[in-house]
């Protein structure tokens, strides 16, 4: 009896330890996401619930923050050392967060093969390292109506043969000459801020220019104010001088209300426009203004904070979100473009032959990421100022020169942002 007692005690202790392990509560992993439309919020919540139910080691705890000041909230939390383990962020902010030390490279936790399977727009990088990954993207496009193209005898552009600059301008002139549309073309000039670099930047790039020299990420001189950039500026300005596009449109429903014929905007409008025009809606590739069509890449993505105490749990969650099934599920619920071919294949709208497959093709073939540098916020605001000035009639060379000065001064002030 006495001999058995230590053994029994040991067995009991082992059993107790084992059972306490089995019953141990999952480790909490905090997560922040920005507040956005109902469809995405519900899809995101469902994904978190699926992850929490799929294993018992980690539990994701979600906090939702308003989008309008989300970046400020992240910065404040980083300063107060209260960043969550995993959080979403708009892709252009990733390099700045990485440079500021808020993020740890996600490539340390996800395999290279896994990352290679994602489209360009799915990855947020800084100095060649991947810091974030995203389930979805959006793409720039031209919307018009098939009936308009037929009535004005305008060629229907395709992925293989998008409109050239001459064709685009000829189409706009022809429609304008009919007198049916006061402003036949619309490029969302009532949007400012980030839209300029996201929307007008690709047009600039299609002219052969860019927002910054991507060889060094230090200079904009000659790139943002060189001949190609100035040609873009003159062309862009002519849209308003010749009243092809409205400088100050009043609302966002002009295309649906039949007040404009061709709308240059993003794939996010596809659902509303399909509802408005049904089969008459024509979704066209962005124009080739000389150097091929270009769309911006990168939407909201997931990253792991450098202060995260459980990065392996956060990485497991992010990998779960980036599985083909979850990418497809998010796309199905939100109509956003999936960022992997496997995910796209599982969706109805973006698989081969799907209604919006063309957006996936744009995203896959035409994407040029917005400059992946911590200087992007300054590049974006300086380019926005230049674009607004050009719209208002300022000499394009002067407007772009000013933008170059602002960008380069900021880069210099910040010691090159690590480049």
């Amino acid at each position, binding site marked *: 009896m006495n001999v058995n007692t230590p053994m029994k005690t040991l067995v009991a202790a082992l059993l107790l330890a084992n059972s306490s392990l089995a019953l141990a509560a999952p480790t909490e992993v905090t997560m922040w996401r*920005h507040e956005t*439309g109902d469809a995405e919020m519900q899809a995101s919540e469902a994904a978190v619930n699926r992850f929490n139910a799929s294993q018992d080691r980690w539990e994701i705890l979600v906090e939702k923050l308003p989008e*309008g000041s989300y970046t*400020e*909230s992240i910065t404040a*939390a980083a300063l107060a050392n209260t960043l969550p383990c995993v959080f979403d962020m708009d892709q252009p902010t990733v390099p700045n967060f990485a440079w500021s030390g808020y993020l740890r490279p996600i490539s340390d936790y996800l395999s290279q093969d896994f990352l290679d399977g994602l489209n360009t727009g799915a990855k947020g990088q800084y100095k060649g390292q991947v810091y974030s990954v995203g389930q979805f993207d959006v793409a720039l496009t031209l919307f018009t109506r098939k009936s308009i193209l037929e009535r004005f005898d305008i060629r229907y552009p395709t992925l293989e043969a998008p409109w050239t600059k001459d064709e685009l301008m000829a189409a706009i002139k022809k429609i304008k000459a009919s007198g049916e549309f006061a402003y036949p073309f619309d490029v969302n000039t009532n949007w400012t801020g980030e839209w300029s670099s996201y929307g007008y930047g690709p047009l600039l790039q299609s002219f052969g220019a860019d927002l910054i020299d991507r060889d060094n990420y230090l200079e904009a001189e000659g790139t943002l104010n060189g001949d190609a950039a100035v040609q873009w500026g003159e062309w862009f300005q002519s849209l308003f001088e010749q009243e092809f596009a409205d400088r100050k449109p009043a609302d966002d429903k002009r295309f649906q209300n039949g007040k404009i014929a061709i709308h240059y905007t993003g794939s996010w409008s596809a659902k509303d426009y399909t509802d408005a025009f049904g089969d008459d809606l024509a979704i066209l590739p962005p124009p080739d203004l000389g150097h091929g069509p270009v769309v911006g890449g990168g939407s909201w993505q997931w990253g792991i904070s450098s202060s995260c105490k459980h990065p392996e749990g956060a990485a497991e969650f992010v990998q779960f979100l980036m599985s083909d099934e979850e990418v497809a599920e998010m796309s199905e619920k939100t109509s956003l473009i999936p960022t992997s071919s496997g995910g796209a294949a599982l969706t109805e709208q973006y698989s081969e032959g799907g209604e919006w497959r063309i957006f996936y093709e744009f995203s896959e073939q035409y994407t040029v990421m917005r400059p992946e540098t911590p200087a992007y916020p300054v590049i974006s605001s300086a380019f926005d100022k230049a674009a607004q000035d050009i719209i208002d009639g300022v000499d394009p060379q002067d407007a772009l020169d000013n933008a170059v000065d602002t960008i380069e001064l900021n880069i210099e002030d910040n010691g090159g942002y690590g480049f």
Partner: protein
Amino acid sequence: MIETNVDAMRPYKTLLRYAVMIFLAYIFAFPLLFMVMSSFKTENAMFADMYSLRAVLPVGDLMLDNYQNVFRKSNIELFFFNSVIITTLNVLLGLIVNSMAAFSMARLKWKGQEFVLIAIVSLLIVPFEAIAIPLLMLVAKLPWIAFEGGELVVQSSWLNTLHVQIIPGIANAFQIFLFYQFFRDIPKDFDEAAAIDGASPLRTFWSLIVPMSGPVFATATILAFLANWNNYLWPILTTQSESARPIMVGIQMFFSNNTDWGEIMAYSTLTTIPVFIVFIAFQKKFVASLAGTGIKG
């Protein structure tokens, strides 16, 4: 004959004056009227009415659906409650603390008085944005004793609480200066008379100065109420959980996940109502205070 002409012109002048005033009133009232009227319309009706006078008139199919959706889709009750608590306490405590600080500088004599006054006035030129980050880092590490689950617990940070949105805003340099200016102009004879009657400085303040300072208290109340009710930056920096967020952060959250402008207008209308109530309640004294300030200038 000339006098008759002048008399004949008078109605036209009056008419012209009224026309100008109506025009100006329309310009100032338009955004407010548009917001309130649009909150009762569908989004399509709102956009359809936008280019005519109908935009500011209660015409068409009016409904309460936008308001119902605001309450259904958002946690507006909580945000509204938080804002009321934060603003009320901030205004009340601010009035007490700042008026007493101003009283001590305007009516009492003590060593270093001028230096403190200069220091406070010099704070007026420091924008809140300049001190927001240091203040954030400070409150992030300040401990607090709270009552949770029936027992007292020590919290390691002020973040995500209501008091972090109240306490740092109580002492306000602008309010102190506002009270100081007003108190300084009240004749000292009152204090001397009170002192002869045996009143302490505190008694003089409560029983004599405060009752005579209605306009400045009204002005301070309105300005402090507006500043606190509309506060956005500080709550965004300090409240990461929904439970402590005020209404201005709430409206931004609502705007983030809503594209229906009718509902956004309904939310905005609800947010504006308390501002209206406070302004109307203190309007007369507020105007009197402004007029008084003008005379002094």
